[in-house]
């Protein structure tokens, strides 16, 4: 077989089980693609030795007839996941030299399911960003281009390295994390599938925390089926994470029938934003039509508090982050600033954190500190929490009316050029999350499915939002949309 790296998880799994290919062959194919793709800056730390060792072990397991879900499948791991003995820096200078002595639950479960780790993937620093430009490693680059224009485009963020790597076939799939859209937006920008599960579905243990009440790990894949396979391996109760839920993990792949007849799909009117590009509007409409053709019922719904979601998110997430990032103080691990004679503990903190954190992280730590401070807490943090409750209730009301899933655009535009947002007001960048943050605030599962191509030849995605814990049903609706959309475009190889 040739172009093994271009396979998805399902195809590769089937080929492995049939004996048409070995995991070592798959892994070597990916490793050589990764070696030739430095221009994408997707992998920030390559682990070929670990990959080949695990591939050989996987081949042995397959040979012995013991082939769990992800056995022998080469994937990339976002740098936010702590991986034992392998640099895990969350894209930040402050974790320079940090080698965890432990493995995150999700990456451990993937390894236990036989997955082969190829390396660590680029991301915005501490998952704070929508373009991958806040990474200490420099930004990842999208494999997509606007026709013959060689302007470098963002793969999105924060899971930009994951999206770029999957879209460019450097790996079969990758892990991502999503706090406000960090899986779904990059997936939409790169023509890949990105699923953010229900909050509590995947353990957060061992994943560097950004905003604990919003963070959730999920799969980034080449197809909906692959997302179903990979989620099955990532999900499950973990007693080490108090917010992880003790619920059985269904066989998500078995639920992919493509039959969505009689399902009610809600179209929230509040997601029709002023100044939204016509192409996005048209795509959204087409998506609804596709689901309708597949037998679903399309209903107009209202999620009245949607417009407060972005401001609430940009209070809650920085507030939690300001506290979560306090542990990076130069005392025990990671970067510590060189101190001048006479410097004390305060100077050590100040210099270490000034050197270790980039501008966007510093901005959010300051915003978070401010909104939690005495005298402002009620006006910002408490109010944001109330808004969050209302947003959650909006969704509950919609589901209570019999809506099975909600269809929205995934992003307000196609991928933009790297540096294009550089001069802009940070809020312009935050607007990228306008369709995705509500899902995190409400703790719901959401999936971005590539659905169309814009006039520049760039992929566009739609988002489906499901009921809590109903990822199976959501994946099946996404599967129907994927079938109907028939998105097959791939970026031309320029790197």
């Amino acid at each position: 077989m040739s172009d093994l790296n271009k396979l998805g998880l399902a195809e590769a799994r089937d080929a492995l089980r049939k004996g048409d290919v070995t995991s070592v062959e798959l892994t070597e194919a990916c490793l050589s693609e990764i070696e030739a793709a430095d221009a994408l800056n997707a992998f920030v730390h390559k682990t070929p030795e670990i990959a080949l060792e695990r591939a050989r072990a996987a081949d042995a397991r397959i040979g012995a007839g013991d082939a769990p879900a992800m056995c022998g499948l080469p994937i990339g791991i976002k740098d936010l996941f702590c991986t034992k003995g392998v640099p895990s820096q969350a894209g930040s200078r402050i974790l320079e030299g940090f080698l965890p002595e432990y493995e995150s639950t999700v990456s451990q479960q993937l390894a236990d399911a036989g997955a082969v780790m190829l390396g660590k993937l680029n991301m915005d620093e501490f998952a704070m960003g929508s373009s991958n430009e806040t990474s200490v490693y420099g930004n990842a680059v999208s494999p997509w281009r606007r026709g013959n224009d060689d302007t470098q485009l963002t793969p999105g963020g924060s899971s930009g390295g994951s999206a770029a790597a999957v879209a460019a076939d450097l790996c079969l799939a990758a892990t991502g994390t999503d706090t406000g859209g960090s899986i779904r937006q990059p997936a939409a920008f790169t023509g890949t599938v990105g699923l953010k599960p229900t909050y509590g579905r995947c353990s957060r243990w061992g994943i560097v925390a950004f905003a604990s009440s919003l963070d959730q790990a999920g799969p980034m894949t080449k197809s909906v089926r692959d997302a179903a396979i990979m989620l099955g391996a990532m999900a499950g109760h973990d007693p080490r994470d108090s917010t992880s839920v003790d619920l059985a993990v269904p066989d998500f792949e078995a639920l992919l029938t493509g039959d969505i007849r009689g399902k009610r799909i809600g179209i929230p009117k509040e997601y029709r934003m002023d100044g939204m590009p016509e192409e996005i509007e048209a795509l959204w409409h087409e998506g609804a039509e596709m689901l309708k053709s597949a037998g679903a019922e399309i209903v107009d719904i209202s999620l009245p508090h949607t417009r407060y979601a972005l401001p609430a998110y940009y209070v809650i997430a920085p507030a939690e982050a300001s506290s979560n990032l306090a542990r990076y103080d130069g005392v025990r691990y990671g970067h510590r600033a060189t101190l001048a004679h006479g410097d004390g503990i305060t100077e050590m903190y100040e210099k270490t954190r000034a050197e270790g954190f980039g501008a966007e992280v510093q901005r959010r730590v300051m915003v978070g500190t401010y909104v939690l401070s005495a005298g402002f807490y009620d006006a910002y943090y408490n109010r944001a929490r109330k808004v969050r409750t209302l947003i959650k209730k909006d969704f509950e009301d919609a589901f209570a009316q019999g809506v099975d899933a909600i269809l929205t655009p995934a992003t307000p535009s196609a991928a933009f050029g790297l540096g294009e947002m550089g001069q802009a007001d940070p809020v312009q960048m935050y607007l990228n999350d306008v369709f995705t943050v509500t899902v995190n605030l409400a703790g719901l599962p959401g999936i971005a499915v590539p659905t169309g191509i814009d006039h520049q030849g760039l992929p566009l995605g739609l988002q489906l939002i499901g009921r809590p814990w109903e990822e199976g049903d959501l994946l099946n609706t996404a599967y129907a949309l994927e079938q109907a959309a028939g998105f097959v475009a791939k970026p031309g190889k320029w790197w």
Partner: protein
Amino acid sequence: MLDLTFEPPKPKVIAGAKHDWELVIGMEVHAQVSSRAKLFSGASTTFGAEPNSNVSFVDAAMPGMLPVINEFCVEQAVRTGLGLKAAINLVSAFDRKNYFYPDLPQGYQISQLYHPIVGEGEVLVELGEGIARMVRIERIHLEQDAGKSIHDMDPNMSFVDLNRTGVALMEIVSRPDIRGPEEAAAYIAKLRQILRYLGTCDGNMQNGNLRADVNVSVCRPGEYEKYWETQDFSHLGTRCEIKNMNSMRFIQQAIEVEARRQIALLEAGGEVVQETRLYDPDKGETRSMRSKEEAHDYRYFPDPDLLPLEIEQTWVDEIAAALPELPDARKARYMSDFGLTDYDASVLTAEVETAAYFEAVAQGRDGKLAANWVINELFGRLKKEDHDITSSPVDPAQLGGIIDLISRGDISGKIAKDLFEIVYTEGGDPAEIVEARGMKQVTDTGAIEAAVDQVIADNPAQVEKAKANPKLAGWFVGQVMKATGGKANPKAVNDIVQAKLGL
């Protein structure tokens, strides 16, 4: 249980240069929860371990680590709440208190600001027979302890020991119901006693397992009563908080010193500034640690890593049903069942180990006699050698054996003391010792009669005197006792002497 009627003590009054002042004191007691593992990690809590050996990834706040509540610590907090007759909150929640310090790896302490696990309760603090103060408890919350920073090991560096980081503490917050230094010490002692009875804190103040922040203010006589009627704090003076006290003696000194400082300040026309202070026992003064302006803004917010803590009423009921007998109840029982005095009952119930020892001795025996032996003989002897009850060389069965020998009339009180000394220093079964060493009291009247006859025959002159003056019969008793090596039953000797002398 006996209903203890009591009167409140008089508040401490300090005479200033101009007029009298009263003290108002509230306490925040930090009690380390007796638990083998920390509040949110499985790391050990053993005291005195090698620095940084009881530290998990969670305690060291490694990236991606998450807290998981230790159910046993929750149970201990509930048990403590029940022991202080407090309301148990079935739903409580954890908040983060944010500040930077090297011995606080997370950069925040997980505590319970908004929704503590235990609500209002009370502690009866006795200050003498019939005199007691009912101190109201405002709340008890669970929180993590910090580690230890060591600044004096190196001129250029500080060291951090994280062994204590994350150990569970209960912060027990009182209302400002304490009215003097002695009351403050008595309050801590009573709290410590209850916690030790409950087994929820070992009360070891030296190791810092029980320590207090003391809030002190002063007011003019009469103002406190206005506060009491209205619960309006504006009637009270501005308070200062003296941090981290772990000695009863220093707590009393610090309160006195701080109150006098405030009085001097107020009488000179100044104002007390609300602030945190430290007591320096060497100089006998309190010093400002940080003023209100420098006070940290802790940016409390609900910890998103932890779900609200929900417990079942049935579980609380189970804990309540298994609650041990507490000091007040036990003391009342000792007074009613054993007929002990208030003082003896207090002494015996002061420490849970002492009470257990006493009960083992008193079981099936005369309670008063048992109390006398435990308090007078045993305690006295233990004190001489700086032992405490847990290291007593005489166990309750041995002491009980001695008492049994007395009760049966086998030995006299005097012999019993000798026997106690032998058991104390050499060990062994008291009955066997008495048998083996011939210490048994002679009750055989024949033998005693023979001894009396002998003494009478040897001392005809004394016999004549005694017949004239019956008080001299005692001399004969003494002679007989001497002749029998003290083993004769003194009452039997006395009876026979009287009869033979025809008195």
